[in-house]
Structures are given as structure tokens and as C-alpha cells.
């Protein structure tokens, strides 16, 4: 609790949460949403391919997904930390927030094996293994869970 109080008292935290400037909370929140669109959108496009949409397209064509996802992850990590420290004593003790984080970590965890699977696939390879399909299903569901939990935070943790 002491740590959370300290985090929330940092000048940056106070600025994000208290400043009336449009560049504080509003812009950080909007960048978080844009990062979400890139991160989840690019992940889902890859997941759809792994589940059989466009099955004739080689997996190597989807290498671009990972730089895009990395950009989304970095943006959302930074903006997410800013949003967290702004209300650290609230988020740090809220169960719904931990549920969201669990979904985010689970989703990010599916990205690692999918990344090495796609990057190490043969340039012409089109067939997808059973494990990759399961990971794709898990990725779709955990991202949907993360978005749902994230959106409902506004209602569950006022």
C-alpha cells in the first residue's frame, strides 16, 4: 500500500490524473485504445489465418504482424503504466483490474510461441499444426477477454 501511495504521489501520476489538459488522461487513454486496435487487430488477423482463412497464403506472409504487435504492446505498456500510476491506490487493489491483467498476460504469452512458429516456418509453408491452431483460438479468446475486462473496469471500478 505504501508503494501504491508513493506511485500515486509522483508528479507524473498527479499530472496524468489531475491535469485538465487534453494531453493528460484523455490523450493517454486514446493512445491506449489505438494501441489496442493495432495489437489485437494484427493478432486476430494472424489467428484467422492460422484457423484456416486464406489457407493458401504462406505463413511467412504474416511476419509483419509481429513488428505491428510490438509497436502496439510498447504503446500500451507505456500508456498502461501512466494510467495505472495515476490511480495506483485504486487499481492496485481492484480485483477486476487483476482479471484484466491476467487476460493481457495470457494473450501476450500466446504471442511468443506463435511468433517463433511463424518466423521459423518454411517460406512456402501453408499447413498449420494443431498446437498453433489451439494457440490461435486461445489468442482470440484471451484478447476478447482482455478488451471486455478492460472496458468494464470503467463500470466495476468507478
Amino acid at each position, binding site marked *: 500500500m505504501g508503494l501504491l501511495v508513493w506511485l500515486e504521489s509522483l508528479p507524473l501520476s498527479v499530472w496524468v490524473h489531475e491535469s485538465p489538459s*487534453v494531453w493528460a*488522461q*484523455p490523450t493517454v*487513454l*486514446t493512445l491506449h*485504445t*489505438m494501441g*489496442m*486496435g*493495432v495489437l*489485437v*487487430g*494484427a*493478432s*486476430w*488477423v494472424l489467428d*484467422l489465418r492460422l484457423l484456416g*482463412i*486464406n489457407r*493458401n*497464403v*504462406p505463413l*511467412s*506472409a*504474416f*511476419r*509483419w504482424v509481429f513488428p*505491428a504487435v510490438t509497436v502496439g504492446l510498447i504503446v500500451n505498456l507505456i500508456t498502461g503504466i501512466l494510467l495505472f500510476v495515476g490511480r495506483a491506490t485504486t487499481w492496485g487493489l481492484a480485483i477486476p483490474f487483476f482479471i484484466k491483467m491476467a487476460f493481457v498476460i495470457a494473450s501476450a504469452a500466446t504471442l511468443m510461441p506463435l511468433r517463433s512458429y511463424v518466423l521459423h516456418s518454411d517460406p512456402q509453408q501453408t499447413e498449420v499444426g494443431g498446437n498453433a491452431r489451439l494457440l490461435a483460438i486461445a489468442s482470440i479468446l484471451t*484478447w*476478447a477477454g482482455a*478488451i*471486455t475486462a*478492460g*472496458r*468494464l473496469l*470503467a*463500470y466495476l471500478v468507478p
Partner: protein
Amino acid sequence: MPSITSFNLAHLHLLLNHVPTVGAIVALGLLIVAFIRRDEPLKLVGLEVLFAIAVLTLPAYMTGVAAFQKLRDQPGISEAAIRLHQDVALFGFTWMEFAGFVGWVALWQARRRGRAATGMVAVATALTIVAVVVMAQAANLGGDIRHPEIRTDRSAGAAAATVDPEQFAASKISYIMVNSSWAWPASETVHFLGLSLTFGVLLAVNLRILGVMKQIPFADVHRLLPWGMLGFGANLITGMLFFVGQPKQYLDSAPFYWKVVFLMIAGANFLYLTVFRKAWAPRDNALYGEWDASLADKTMAIVSLFSWLAVLYGGRMLPFIGHAF
């Protein structure tokens, strides 16, 4: 930023309110003539017009609500007559979007197969007929609000009636959206899921135009477009639930105004991505897979991605810029 007042939007409604009716009749005429002449290219033109009109019906409806807010307290204006017009317009909008959606599917298939599926075009045409009939009624009832000389018994009856919001569909939707504890949060969640899907698909398609994954044919990213449409459809439905639920939150809002403007640009871009020819060289062309876009197409791809980000920005900034929620 321009000053966005209800008066300006009400004025814009006078300009836009003829577009759905007249435009849908033009699309219908093109489709019927195309059927009679068995003219395949003309069918596609009819479908393209239909899609464009379906997109423009959105601001036509929304500016009408602005006009309602402006007019309701003026003497000689019947609130019941406006509400009746608004309700029929909402039904007309719904049919119009259905017609536009089926028309889009037919266009997408036509781009892949070389010609539109007759059944799909027939369904789009039938839906357009329904949309025209409902829209014509809406237009007629809209005219009654300010033009007593054209009032019929039905609208005169509505004009005389006392206002009972319970009887109108828009009011019922609004009641549920505002009073239900789950309707608004659930719609928001679907809206965010839909935006991610649409954005992911358009990222893939536009990155291909910009030169990423050049080794795969454009046809393969084109196959993703229906998934983008799925996300967009979810967001059109949930977005309309928000708008009908709490129209006053949006009408005076500068970010919302820009959101709709960029949505129109994004809609035009989506139509272009669906039908444009350049990337669709014959299959035996060795360059087919390695197709490289022109500078104009690359510019368009950047404009498209920017437009979707602007749509997202306008939506997310709604509570913070201009009229706070």
C-alpha cells in the same frame, strides 16, 4: 474547428434529407435497368451507388435529430409529428443499411469471381425497394412537420395527438440504453471488439498496398475484407444504439462531428478497396503476386489508416473535448 451548433446541423439536414430517398431510387433504377438489359457492369454501378447512399444515410439520420432538438420548442411545431418522422426514418435507415450491406457482399463477390451473383443482386434490389418505400414515407412525414399544405389525415392525426414517448421506437431504445444497467457497458464492449477487428483487417490490406508482404497476391488480403465488414457492422449497430440512446451527448460535440466526417472518408475508401481493378491483374500474370501499388494508391492507404485512427480518436475523445458527457 468550425463551430458546430444545432443550427448548422439542422441546415445540413435540409441538404442531406433528400439523399437517401432520391439516391436509393437512382440505385434501384440502375439495378432494374441492369437486370432488364442483362448488363453486368451496370449492375456493379448500381451496387456501388447503393453502398454510397447507405453510407450517406448515416449523417442524414443524425442531422435530423439535431433539427429535432432545434425545432421541438418552436410554436406551430408538433413534437409528435417530428417523433413519427424520426421513427420511420430510423426504420428506413435500418433497411437502407441492410440493402447497402448485401450490395457490398455482391460487389465483393463480383470482384473475386468476375461477375455478381444474380441471387445476391436480386436480394439487394429487393431490400432497396423496401428501403425506398419506407424512406419515401419518412420523407413525406418529414415534409409534414413544416408544410401543413401537404399534411394527410394520418400525419394530421399524429400532429394533433399529445406526445406519449412510450409509443415511439426511438424512445423505447433510448429508455433501455439509459436505464438498463448492462445495455450500455455491453454495447461498449462489443464496440471495442469490433473496432479491433476492423482495424486489424484494414491494417493488413493497407500494409499490402504500402508494400508489405509483396509476395502474396492482393486477392488474398481482399479475402479479409468481410471480416472488417463484420467488425464495422457490429460497430454501426452498437454506435447507433449509443446515438439513439443519448443523442444530445453527440449532437453538439466537435469530436463526434469529425468522427462522422472521417467515417464517410473511410467508407469511400472501403468501397474503393472492394472494387478497384489495378491490383487484379489476370491470374497468369507473373507480376500478379508482386503487384506494387502506384503512389496514388499508397497515398490512399495512408489516408485510410489515418481516417480510421481519426474515427477512433473522435470516439475516445468524446467525453473530453467539447461537451463533456
